[in-house]
């Protein structure tokens, strides 16, 4: 075996080692990250998210500006929770809260903004 061939084999071995190290690093990073991303939501998470969404929607109701889509998401959250799918239930409840908050913003800004549309 020539010196050139030995060097070439060593370089290949080093590359394989580097790839293995990269894979190991990626695997350990995934092992660290995955549990955080996929942590299953609990019933308590749903209860808290649903209560927050309901409170925001109630506030929108007091402003006489609830959205039908908020109710759709609230219903979807409840249905998912009833079937034990708390991940989906929390996601729907958070969507409902975001919609309710947007409707509150709309009602608040429209308190004066409507005048800009009025025919004078």
């Amino acid at each position: 075996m020539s010196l050139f061939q030995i060097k070439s084999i060593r370089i290949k071995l080093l590359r394989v080692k580097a790839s293995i190290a990269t894979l190991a690093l990626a695997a350990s990073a995934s092992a660290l990250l995955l549990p955080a991303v996929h942590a299953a939501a609990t019933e308590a998470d749903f209860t808290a998210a649903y209560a927050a969404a309901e409170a925001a929607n109630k506030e929108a109701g007091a402003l006489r500006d609830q959205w039908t889509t908020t109710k759709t998401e609230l219903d979807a959250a409840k249905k998912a929770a009833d079937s034990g799918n708390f991940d989906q239930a929390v996601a729907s409840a958070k969507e409902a809260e975001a919609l309710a908050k947007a409707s509150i913003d709309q009602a608040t800004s429209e308190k004066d903004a409507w005048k800009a549309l009025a025919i004078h």
Partner: protein
Amino acid sequence: MSVQSTIRLASIAFAAAGAAVAALFLIGPSAHAADKIDPAADAKAFQKYFTDKFPQLKLKDFVNGPYSMNEDMRKQWEEKEEFPPYEFALEAGKEMFTKPFKNGKTYADCFPNGGIGIRQNYPYFDQKEGKVVTLELALNQCREANGEAPISYVKDDMAALTAYMAYTSRGKPFDIKIPDDPRALQAFEDGKRYFYTRRGQLNFSCASCHVQNAGQRIRAETLAPALGILNAMPIYRSEWGSMGTTSRRFVTCNIQTRGVPLEPQSDEYRNLEYYLSYVSNGLPISGPGARP
């Protein structure tokens, strides 16, 4: 500083102060005028907006909604009027109107002129109650005063009754009164605010469709101008496949913007009807109507 220049400075200061006070007096009332509730000026501006936007239409044509917008639509309407889809409701309404309640009285006993030819005066502001009273509300008040259960504001019986009452008033110009009462003026203003306020997830106001986009298409529909829109109520809508009252129209409009509708005959809807009817004063009653 000499006495003379002191006097000159003092007189300049006085003059400036005087000018400022005068300016305040001049500016004050006009600044107030912008916020003043002036229904007559609003109605004039409202009608001018639409007659300027659609110069080819006569004022009275606005009561035909989308059917007044072009020749094709007008022909459709003329053909529909030969066998109008609201005819059954009209007959049912007449029968209901004349049929005595259990106590022997009829609707005619609750209304001026026996309820005939009076549609153009509704809604009115009831100074005793301090609120707007619509025709639909007055009909249920009549029922309750005579020991009958109220009927749904959005369903067929109410549409039939108001169809008959509108029919007996056809051609009479809307004549909505706003008494010299701050509560009546506020009701008008609240109705105006509701009309222009954006709501629902689609962020539409009533005006978005029926002022800014009147005459334009939204999918297959031609949007009716807000001017004269209530003169044709109640209506048979092909889209609904049935008759609908003013209450039904408001509720469905809200739902179409993805907003939760208010309860029929809520204060907001009553005020909205008051505003929209008043700004159409002078235009003839054309109800019951038919719409696509």
